[in-house]
């Protein structure tokens, strides 16, 4: 066990080296902390008063795709009877093939532009999302509002705090506080208050503080038409760590 003795002889150096390594690690970390972007927790949305309509697609579903033309062939005719994949509405990037098929050697004929565009874009559907068809109807205000409510919720989630301080540490309160707040169209907070008390002043204050400290984004176009202010409510359910 010579190595144990040798290690023991150098234990002070070892502990110093390990400490230095940890200090270096935290320094490196601080370098990575500085540019860190705030990320918003993505918790499941719970809506009780508002039942949003299903979000309509921003584009028409593409026609049934056909097999892409073989790159080396002249695209004289579209091949009609081919297996039809399920329609793609708004394909996430994950479905994009890692390698795109090579572009056709010659462009498609203008008369067949719809099909040809579809053929070309089938492996890269997001392009179609970026360039919606001109005749797509605008999204409904309900869906825009639902998206905004979702973003408000995410912002509140990012700014929530369980109360701290001596009294909070001693009480470790639990309860639900419902807060009402009114936002202006530009996203500024007009007013806020307690709708339904948690039975704890500490929690009510923490809930109000969460709503007040949050910076909200302006309302998107088309939401709550005709209103310059809108009233929201949110319930914060506080549970101490046990």
């Amino acid at each position, binding site marked *: 066990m010579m190595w144990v003795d040798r290690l023991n002889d150098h234990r002070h150096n070892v*502990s110093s080296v390990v400490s230095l390594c940890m200090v270096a690690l935290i320094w490196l970390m601080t370098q990575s902390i500085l540019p860190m972007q705030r990320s918003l927790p993505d918790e499941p949305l719970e809506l009780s*008063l508002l039942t949003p309509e299903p979000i309509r697609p921003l584009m028409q579903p593409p026609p049934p795709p056909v097999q892409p033309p073989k790159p080396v062939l002249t695209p004289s005719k579209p091949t009609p009877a081919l297996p039809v994949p399920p329609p793609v509405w708004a394909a996430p990037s994950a479905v994009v093939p890692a390698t795109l098929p090579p572009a056709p050697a010659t462009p498609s004929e203008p008369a067949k532009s719809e099909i040809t565009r579809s053929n070309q874009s089938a492996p890269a559907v997001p392009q179609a999302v970026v360039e919606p068809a001109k005749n797509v109807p605008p999204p409904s205000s309900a869906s825009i509002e639902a998206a905004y409510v979702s973003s408000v919720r995410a912002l509140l989630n990012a700014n929530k705090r369980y109360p701290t301080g001596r009294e909070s540490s001693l009480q470790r309160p639990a309860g639900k506080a419902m807060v009402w707040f009114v936002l202006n169209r530009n996203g500024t907070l007009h007013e806020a208050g307690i709708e339904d008390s948690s039975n704890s002043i500490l929690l009510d204050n923490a809930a109000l503080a969460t709503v007040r400290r949050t910076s909200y984004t302006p309302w998107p176009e088309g939401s709550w038409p005709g209103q310059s202010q809108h009233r929201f409510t*949110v319930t914060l359910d506080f549970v101490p760590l046990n």
Partner: protein
Amino acid sequence: MKRFKPQRLALLVSMAFSAPLLMAQTSTDVGRINVEGQPGGTDSGLITQEETPKARSSVTRQYMEKLNPTSNAFQIIDLLPGVNTFSQDATGLFGGGIRMRGFAGDQLGMTINGAPVNDSGSFSVYPQEYTDTENLCEVFVTQGSTDSDAPHVGASGGNIGMVTCSPKDSFGVRASQSVGQLNYRRSFVRLDTGKVGPSDLKAFISYSKATADKFKGAGGADRNHVDMAVEVRPNADVFLSASVLYNNAMNNNIRSLTNPQIAQYGRNFDFSTVAPQHLTAVAGTAQTETVPADGFYKFNINPFRNYLFTSKAEFKVNKDLTLSAEPYYWYGFGTGGGQIQQLTEGGTGTNVTRLKDLNGDGDTLDKVLAYGSSVTETNRPGVTFKANYRVDNHTINAGYWYERANHRQTGPRVAFDNNGNSSNTWLDNPSAYLLRPDGLAYQARDWKTISTGSSLYAQDTIALMNDKLMLQIGGRNSNIDRDFTNYANAQSTSATGRSDADYNIKRSYGKFLPSAGVKFNLDTQKSVFFNVAENFKAPGNFSFQNLLQGGTVVNGVLTGATLRNPAVGIETSTNMDLGYRMQTDTTTLSGSVFLVNYKNRIASAFDPATALSVDYNVGDVTVKGIELEAGQKLNKNFSLYGSMSYTESMMKQDLKLRASTATDSGVEATAGKSMPDTPKWMAAMALSYKEGPWFGQLTAKYTGKAFSTLVNDQQMDSYTLLNLAAGYKFPSTGFFKTPEVRLNVDNLTNTDYQRISSPSGSQFTVRALPLGTLAGSNPSYYIGAPRFVSVTLRSDF
């Protein structure tokens, strides 16, 4: 002048009334958000997202669950900024010391569930007496400014709070078993009733037994502990809770050593294992039994039992007003220090100093060894009444704390045999006490102190600018009345201070202590804060000992003595913090610069009025520095915590110890020197890991060099301690729910270090080395415990 148009007014009024209706019709519910604990940056359990406008840190269960389960409160907060602690051994069963920003444990207020647990006489704290870590949910530290609503009259340097967990909502049993080096064994079991009945009553009770050998020398620790708690909520507006902790410990002391002793005998030198032997008694011969130089380990023990009852009754008057009453009761009994005492039979002084024939040889000519030390028994009931009131943007906390501590301190002696067994180890059986010639028990100390503490406080927290700005203004008027009775005893019979006659002295100490804090949120993640608060500490009751002077003994009774006026007053401190915090979902950072003006430090010094060296207010100290802490969630597996403290302390005055003579000024040059035991640099790191069933934690604490004497002529070297915890959670099977096994390695690299015993006041060693006519005295050090390995198995049922 414009013409008044009633139509416009009608329109305005109708709009005003209809607006809420319209508003209500268009209200949108954002949904429910769970606020459970703290986000990722706090994953280590060593940092929380503080909102308070003062320096404050806390430790949560996430960290405590990975520690050795016998860890005491000081070990739990060791990594926090500004905290300088040591433990006498790795298990934490033997206790330890603490210092924050230069202030020792007896200058810090300590509470459990809001009830004060500092010794009511000396303000000392004994961390090994308190709750089991499994039942602890949080330990928080306020580094400089004692909280306005904290029940303290001895906290000049901040406060520490321990909070036990509530009983669980569902029925369950938890059991754990730990084994380790040094015959370490610990068994723990806890039963939770879960919610029962219409009032959701829930309760738990736990029991633990822990034993371990000392890492050097013979002897060990034996601790039995019970925690229980109950909560009930009869309706939404009433909440009742109560808890009891009971601790019974029997420890052998770990011997502290001076540097020359370490050099001569080594670091593992400890008390002797050879029992002191009585001489064969011979009638008519003056015999002298001498105290063995290295003592005897069985007669260096610290038996102590204590319990603490805390309770709370909270009433919600309306949504803006809550009232509560929080009664508590502390009881403690025990002894400590070295128990081998040499007693002299007979005597010519006052009756209380004389002894009967102890060895039974028929004469009173002998000096005989006996077993005994100071015994303390405390009965300490108290209550805090609180009111929390919210009006507009103000949240007002006001309250009143009151307690009456009966502190009985005696010094009985009992016999022991040649096998090293005393006739009454706990010194709690008066029939075993050695007697004086008048048939009463001999007492080397006999005091009763009634300490009545009270504090009236109010604090207003004002939210401004949509909660961007928080102002906190508070004040407390804290008082303590000391009613000290000295029953004639044998402690001291010198002409300059004696205690062999009864006397009573009453003193009151009090001060109004204002505090103010402000916090400004720079944005949703960053804030700055500033705080200033005054703290105070009353003198300990030991300042009232040996107050008699002069007098003569006539027929065994002291006559003509005068009572000295204790000149010592309160010590105060003004603490200022200027800090910055950043809180994101992955990062939590907090830092502050601080300045403490510490005034009228109490220490043993020369009092020119009485020409005696007694407890005295010796001067001022400034302490300033920086404290930083940060928690970072690196990814889903790793979290990192780091803290750093830089502390600069300086005593401002020299210390006059004696009257001046032609060759001795009696002055020690302490002006400009650093406070002992206050390292300039400390740093700590904790890297925690979890991946599926695996979890682990590596911590490191660097403690810079610090002086061990007031004149800074001896120092303790810097050192770094590494502790490791690693564990695995098994899948539930059969009766076992989430069983886990955990390995703990303390002092991983087996680092050598040594610490003085976190002294304060007159406990400091003034000078280690002689200088001219100034005598030196080597300070004693606790030896750092070596590497210690333990394994814990735990499961729920």
